[in-house]
């Protein structure tokens, strides 16, 4: 039972500060993937923290803090993106998907049948894939595709949660996700070829892979 208002505020503040600090890598990482640049990511995290503090009394289940503040942060990004672009996220200049993009599969490029699984090129590829390669591939996605990808792959949201947050029909989430995956895998593939990770190319000189 709460008896002393001052103690409540102090407890709330301590809880809030320690949770924000604990979740900092996740909040900043998500914001960075959404915006693609540090300055915007920092502003979004700061805005999300300010909004979360204001809304804290409405959070009943303190165990849910992580998912709750992640949602606030994502909402800050979406409203900011809308404001800046002055157009809804539902509009894309060219939504139609060229077959090659949608169908692109890293696995098909890498996989060689009849090899034992522990020595396959696709597993070697995953082991040698650098964190920086993945970050670059995310950041290179056009913004609406990136947003869907971040909400599903990083936030771990369902298609319907993603659709609701972005104000999109669920079918559009599915098609953007498929296209985003194709584009991202194609980007990883081209860098893998440059770096000599793929089976087709020999090791490229001058780049350490692991």
């Amino acid at each position, binding site marked *: 039972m709460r008896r002393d208002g001052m103690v409540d505020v102090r407890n709330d*503040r301590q809880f*809030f*500060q320690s949770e*924000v*600090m604990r979740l*900092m*890598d*996740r909040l*900043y*990482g*998500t914001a*960075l*993937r959404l915006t693609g640049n*540090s300055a915007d990511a*920092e502003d979004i*995290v*700061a805005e999300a*923290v*300010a909004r979360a*503090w204001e809304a804290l009394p409405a959070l009943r289940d303190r165990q849910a803090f992580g998912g709750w503040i992640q949602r606030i942060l994502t909402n800050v990004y979406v409203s900011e993106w809308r404001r800046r672009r002055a157009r809804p996220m539902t509009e894309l200049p060219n939504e139609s998907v060229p077959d090659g993009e949608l169908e692109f599969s*890293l*696995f098909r490029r*890498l*996989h060689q*049948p009849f090899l034992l*699984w522990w020595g*396959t090129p*696709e*597993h070697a590829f*995953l082991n040698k*894939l650098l*964190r920086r390669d*993945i*970050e670059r591939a*995310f950041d290179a996605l056009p913004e609406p595709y990136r947003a869907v*990808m*971040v909400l*599903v*792959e*990083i*936030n*771990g949201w*369902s*298609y319907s949660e993603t659709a609701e947050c972005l104000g999109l029909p669920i079918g559009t989430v599915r098609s953007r*996700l*498929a296209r985003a*995956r194709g584009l*991202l*895998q194609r980007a990883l593939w081209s860098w893998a070829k440059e770096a000599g990770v793929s089976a087709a190319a020999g090791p490229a000189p001058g780049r350490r892979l692991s």
Partner: protein
Amino acid sequence: MSPRPISCEEVLARLFAYLDGELRDVEQAEIDRHLEWCRDCFTRAEFERRLKARLAQAGRASPPERLRERLKLMMARF
């Protein structure tokens, strides 16, 4: 009742929805069952699952010190 046998094409068409946890229980079970005996589809599914795990890691990044300081200052005023 055991799940309906499905083809590799059906598995591949729904693989990402399966990995994203977007299928109904019965569809999920059909793919689970297929992956138990089809090595090609299992290999593909494992690759995509591991790639998804790597992508999820991109959502964590160490913030610059100035952001930590900014938030500490902001939260001290709460």
